[in-house]
């Protein structure tokens, strides 16, 4: 049996599924059967109270939301899924695999999803719900779905890579490089999620004028400390615009500090790691540390904010911070690696002007503060539906 190996475990589906995938008829993007399946999955998962990330995924894949997404595409009649998508998902984020899988299915494909290696209950919950639906009223989609787990193995990666039309690799530069050791067919395309960094822009005056500052702080927490400030979407540098910057920063950071003190656990190794990161950048660049009573919030003011600064990014509450007069001054850090810009109090039109005038190599998403982790079908600069489907040309 070509798709069974030592150490390869099928959590959903079986080797026969994968065997048969190449012969399946592709689906259309946003196929009714897929939307119905995801909507039922949504129904199962939105009941999950213990895991907000599972519930968030459940909320995202409900029918009404998917139909809204569908409405953004005007070429569905000429599109089909590319065939088989092989997803390699990150080992330390529990629910990311579900979004990747849903996008692959919505684009019209059969999906082999490599689940995170580490045991997460969220993965078990979602997998069980998928199994239940495929065993029941959505059996028609069962041939299109396999969830697998395996330890790092070139042999297994080779096998799945050899049959896929699209390979989706999450997990950063090293994982991408590792998976690229396994060849893919000539027509197969890849979607790679490389190491990225993200930034934030806050307008000081808008912040000071805001009535519900604690909501802003909570949103900032969600973008940063909630994932140890280590997601690709977590801002590593905060730019301040506006007039009363000093006053705004004072208020903002003291509230952040208060919240972090209540909610965050900084392990000793993280403290040492932050101190190391701070001295590492200090050794080679002109930066100054903002004094703090503890290690919870580390703020460094660089003399210049250029792309090289981001080589020294760190996590667990480690922020560069820069005052600017014009948005154009953020361009230095917006190299290819720059992914998400989160903002507060800056009008969207300012970003449009900035993008038009500066045309940075990076910045793939511009979203309000607190929304950095919200998954969308346009992610990391890729339109996932279009990247995982093919369009037939020539028909009028």
């Amino acid at each position, binding site marked *: 049996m070509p798709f069974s190996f030592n150490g390869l475990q099928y959590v959903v589906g079986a080797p026969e599924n994968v065997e048969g995938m190449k012969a399946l008829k592709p689906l259309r993007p946003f196929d009714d059967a897929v939307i119905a399946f995801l909507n039922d999955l949504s129904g199962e998962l939105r009941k999950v109270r213990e895991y907000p990330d599972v519930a968030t995924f459940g909320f995202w894949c409900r029918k009404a939301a998917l139909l809204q997404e569908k409405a953004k595409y005007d070429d569905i009649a000429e599109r089909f899924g590319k065939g088989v998508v092989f997803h390699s998902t*990150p*080992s*330390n*984020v529990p629910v*990311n695999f579900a979004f990747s899988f849903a996008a692959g299915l919505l684009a019209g494909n059969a999906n082999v999803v490599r689940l995170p290696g580490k045991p997460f209950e969220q993965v078990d919950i979602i997998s069980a719900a998928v199994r239940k639906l495929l065993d029941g009223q959505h059996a028609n989609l069962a041939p299109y779905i396999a969830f697998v787990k395996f330890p790092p193995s070139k042999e297994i990666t080779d096998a799945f890579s050899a049959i896929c039309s699209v390979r989706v690799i*999450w*997990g*950063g530069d*090293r*994982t991408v490089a590792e998976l690229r050791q396994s060849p893919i067919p000539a027509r197969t395309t890849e979607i790679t*999620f490389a*190491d990225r960094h993200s930034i934030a822009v806050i307008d000081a005056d808008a912040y000071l004028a805001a009535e519900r500052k604690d909501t802003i702080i909570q949103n900032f927490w969600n973008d940063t400390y*909630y*994932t*140890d*400030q*280590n*997601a*690709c*979407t*977590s801002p590593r540098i905060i730019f301040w615009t506006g007039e009363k910057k000093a006053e705004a920063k004072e208020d903002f950071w003291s509230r952040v500090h208060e919240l972090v003190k209540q909610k965050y656990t*900084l*392990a*000793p*190794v*993280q*403290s*040492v*790691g932050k*101190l*190391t990161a*701070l*001295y*590492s*950048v*200090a*050794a*080679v*660049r*002109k*930066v*100054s*540390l903002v*004094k703090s*009573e*503890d*290690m*919870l919030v580390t703020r*460094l003011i660089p003399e210049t904010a250029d792309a090289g600064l981001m080589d020294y990014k760190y*996590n*667990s509450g480690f922020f560069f911070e820069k005052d600017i007069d014009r948005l154009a001054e953020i361009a230095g850090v917006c190299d290819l690696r720059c992914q998400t810009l989160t903002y507060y109090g800056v009008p969207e039109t300012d970003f449009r002007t900035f993008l038009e005038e500066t045309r940075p190599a990076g910045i793939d998403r511009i979203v309000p503060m607190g929304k950095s982790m919200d998954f969308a079908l346009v992610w990391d600069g890729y339109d996932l539906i279009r990247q995982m489907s093919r369009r037939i040309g020539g028909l009028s």
Partner: protein
Amino acid sequence: MTFDDFLNMPPFSMDKAEKERALTGRLAELTKLHRANCPEYARMLETVGFDPDGVTSYRDLPFLPVRLFKDMELRSVPKEDVVKTMTSSGTTGQAVSKIYLDRTTSANQQKTMVKIVSDFTGSGRMPMIIIDCPGVVKDRAMFSARGAGILGFSIFGAKKIYALDDDMKLDVEGVKAFLEVYRGQKILLFGFTFMVWQHFYKELARLKEEGITFDLSNGILIHGGGWKKLISEAVSRDEFHRRMEEACGLKDIHDYYGMVEQTGCIYMECECGHLHASNFSDVIIRRPANFSEADIGETGIIQVVSTIPESYPGHSLLTEDEGSILGEDDCPCGRKGKYFKINGRLKNAEIRGCSDTYAVQF
């Protein structure tokens, strides 16, 4: 005090007040020296807004995480003056610390080590059994921690023998003959804790069952490198001591704590089972949340200061180890200074995020 003044005193003689004055003077001076001669270090101090002239205690001096020496070259002397580069042990693929020594620093490391160790072994050299294989020191160009430890302690040995061959097998005949020649004399044994247990003790215990015995009741064993591997075999310090005595009569056993980044200033375990800071150095326990100084008995991250390093800015370092101070100036063994215990490495934290990397790469 100059470094020579430290050398001219008994190594465990300073009480808290005296040591506070002596260390503050010497370490503040080293801070200035490195600031003037190591541009990276100067920039680090500038970043944190450190003012060397405002120092009232060595406790206020900045401490560099040891990892920095793995990631960059930190030197306070020109390249030409480096006579030796020490590297930490690391498993393949891991970054290693690079410590640059000039003539003075290298010589002072050795003199310090002699002062400290002699306080436990008595002065004068002894026949020495190195519980390791000769291969570990062959490559003299690059010192590994194990090799450096052996070479460092070799100065206490008059005649030396390696107890293990390069396959880590006990050289039964060689050791027997060596003990025969030096019968009645005090013998120094040195090795890494796990090597001693795995390749020496276990073999002695096995041979004893076969009726082949060794008498090491005249021996003094110095061992270091940590208990991690022994703890996984459920061997405690007391058990280690008891079994050693049972196997070969060895009673005089001293653990030590030290690191390649501050070679020379080793912390020896006294007769009461406590690790001791000598006049030459000190340990300060830091609270992880804000790096303030912890109280006696409180567990925290270990900072070490050393009066030796002049060629690299390593006189005040934050280790990756956890421990606590047991007391100061009042150990029943009579030695002044702090005495402490090590709990082991800081625990790794698995942090979140979407890149498949883990919090700590050490």
